[in-house]
């Protein structure tokens, strides 16, 4: 240093002059975050907002919801998996549990996600591809055969037909002799983000919301340890949103569910602590950490100050994280191991409660056993080798991280205002507000790639001529006909009278205002198929088609 200056402004000025005098890289790359937030080359104490000391386990939980962070308990390593038939997936689950995984996470195939049976004409070619095919309670029994549901927690990624799959899980537990009150796990059950981003909607928004509230209300009474909803930013982000949009739209969805439950007459503290969240961990390291921290702070404030929740547990935003599927590349797929490790680290430094790390081949197809194990090992390496779990919120107090956390919060609040001006989340969906914002962001990013203002290694730079052929998992096409035969067999061999009675009662209830969960549970117990139960409700609720906004 040339002078020993004391005045902070003067020192800063000196740095600035030296910075500007130094030659800058001329690679033409963006210096903003991947979401387009402009970044300073340096952050200092002057970028910190005035605020009281924040501590983990204390409102507003910016630094974490547990006073002991990962010192008390590590995050749950929860690898999302499921493919082909229930038998095959059951084998994979046993393999993962034997390898040290601590919770299950079920991926369903497209027909199951869209509420249709394997023998529906539009299920052709889709069975068992993106996850496991579940048509009825019989498949669910096979899926968890030999896995005691009282001892594990299970996450189920399903939305429009979520209530049906939850009932199937409860019914399997009944058969195992495990009471519903003992069951732990998470149901994604987040229909709003389906309308916004993932588009796996079936009913129009109003009856869809009714089903969500029905399940929340029912679980508050009967399955109190169950996380009734996993309010998801993951799909919003994967659809191309920015980090701030992911944050804002997800929390806005969360508030919409809270509003709906309150409207039903529930007390906020009776259900708010069972709401959970699900975020993406994208490749822009610091931006992601800031996003997670901001999410906790915003949620705590809104729950306490706007909704008047009294119970501290209602203020705490708990979340699951998955590393970003969209960041993976088919080119030089081994690079995905490195990407996933960095994203997973961001999730951990952001204080996630549970984590899924993507397998390197997931961009090509379903992961092979080997790739799935590598992904899990990446988490174990983070937890047990690197030492990052030893200190709580290790980046707290970083000028940069704190400033970025504040910026995230500011952008989210600005979005809340716009959503409110549009009349709330559902009117904003109907006006295609979210869809347009996301499509714009996705297009902007794609253009940045095309103009090489951003680099994706192996894709638009550092490419290799000949890509190595990697082994991928294939779904045996025979499984399709087996699954079709299976659902037909279930239909042929059940107690028909009991089944059709259950469906008639469900239709009546759907036309009224009763909570539909007990009716769905009864239909499930009677081995009504998922498609039959959905179609019964479609007769009453109708189907939704969206206005396409490009």
């Amino acid at each position, binding site marked *: 240093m040339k002078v020993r200056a004391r005045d902070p402004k003067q020192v800063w000025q000196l740095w600035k002059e030296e910075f500007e005098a130094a030659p800058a890289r001329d690679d033409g790359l963006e210096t903003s975050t991947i979401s387009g937030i402009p970044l300073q080359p340096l952050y200092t104490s002057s970028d910190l907002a005035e605020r009281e000391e924040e501590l983990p386990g204390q409102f507003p939980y910016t630094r974490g919801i547990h006073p002991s962070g990962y010192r008390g308990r590590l995050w749950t390593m929860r690898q999302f998996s499921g493919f082909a038939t229930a038998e095959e997936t059951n084998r994979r689950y046993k393999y993962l549990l034997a390898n040290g995984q601590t919770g299950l996470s079920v991926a369903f195939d*497209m*027909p199951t*996600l*869209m509420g*249709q049976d394997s023998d529906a*004409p*539009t*299920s*052709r*070619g*889709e069975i068992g*591809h*993106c996850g496991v095919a579940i048509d009825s309670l019989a498949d669910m029994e096979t899926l968890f055969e030999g896995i005691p549901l009282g001892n594990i927690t299970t996450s189920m990624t399903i939305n429009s037909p979520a209530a049906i799959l939850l009932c199937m899980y409860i019914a399997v537990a009944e058969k195992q002799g495990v009471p519903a009150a003992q069951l732990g796990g998470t149901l994604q059950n987040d229909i709003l983000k*389906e309308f916004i981003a*993932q*588009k*796996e*909607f079936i009913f129009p928004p109003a009856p869809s919301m009714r089903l969500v509230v029905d399940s929340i209300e029912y679980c508050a009474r009967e399955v109190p340890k169950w996380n009734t909803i996993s309010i998801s930013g993951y799909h919003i982000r*994967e*659809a*191309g949103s920015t980090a701030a949009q992911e944050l804002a739209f997800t929390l806005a969805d969360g508030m919409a569910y809270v509003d709906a439950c309150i409207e039903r007459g529930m007390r906020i503290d009776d259900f708010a602590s069972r709401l959970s969240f699900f975020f993406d961990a994208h490749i822009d390291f610091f931006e992601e950490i800031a996003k997670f921290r901001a999410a906790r702070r915003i949620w705590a404030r809104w729950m306490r100050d706007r909704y008047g929740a009294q119970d501290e547990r209602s203020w705490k935003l708990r979340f699951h994280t998955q590393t970003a599927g*969209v960041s993976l*590349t*088919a*080119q030089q797929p081994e690079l995905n191991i490195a990407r996933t490790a960095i994203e997973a680290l961001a999730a951990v430094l952001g204080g996630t409660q549970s984590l899924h790390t993507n397998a390197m081949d997931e*961009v*090509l*197809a*379903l992961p092979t056993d080997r790739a799935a194990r590598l992904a899990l090992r990446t988490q174990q390496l983070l937890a047990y080798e690197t030492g990052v779990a030893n200190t709580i919120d290790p980046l707290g107090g970083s000028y940069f991280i704190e400033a970025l956390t504040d910026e995230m919060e500011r952008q989210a609040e600005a979005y809340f205002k716009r959503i409110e001006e549009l009349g709330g989340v559902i009117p904003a969906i109907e006006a295609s507000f979210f869809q347009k914002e*996301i*499509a714009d962001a*996705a*297009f902007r990013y*794609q253009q940045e*790639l*095309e103009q090489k203002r951003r680099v*994706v290694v192996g*894709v*638009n730079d550092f490419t290799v001529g000949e*890509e190595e*052929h990697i082994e*991928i998992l294939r*779904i045996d096409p025979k499984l399709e006909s087996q699954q079709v035969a299976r659902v037909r067999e279930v239909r042929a061999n059940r107690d028909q009278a009991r089944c059709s009675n259950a469906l008639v009662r469900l239709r009546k209830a759907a036309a009224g205002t009763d909570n539909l969960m007990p009716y769905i549970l009864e239909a499930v117990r009677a081995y009504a198929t998922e498609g039959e139960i959905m179609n019964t409700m479609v007769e009453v609720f109708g189907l939704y*088609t*969206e206005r*396409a906004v*490009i």
Partner: protein
Amino acid sequence: MPANTAVRPVRIVLAKVGLDGHDRGVKVVARALRDAGYEVIYTGLRQTPEMVVDAALQEDAQVIGLSIHSGAHMTLFPAVVQELKRRKATDIVVFGGGIIPDDDIAALKQKGVAELFTPGTPLQGIVDWLRKRFPQGAA
């Protein structure tokens, strides 16, 4: 590059076949093709092969672009080609995009899909391919 106004723009039906709702890619492609001077008719989600071909015929499209992310491409892409044959409209060119492994690409081309674009394809690559295929605009 503005398209020559004396030439009728090539019309492209873009469709999401299969049950998945991942429309990020197809929407980005739609914008890029529009900006390259093409008329894009977007049919939305969950189109069956019959619906796609019907739309292409009604819209007098020269090209069908299919997008899928659910893994059902080996069933649905050839089904579109078959349906075109059945409706005697084999002059309509079919291309596809999505998560499609290399081996499947070869098999699909053999079954009559003209070209396949996988994640990471630059948008310009799709535009260049179309320009080569339709140098004079619509026939």
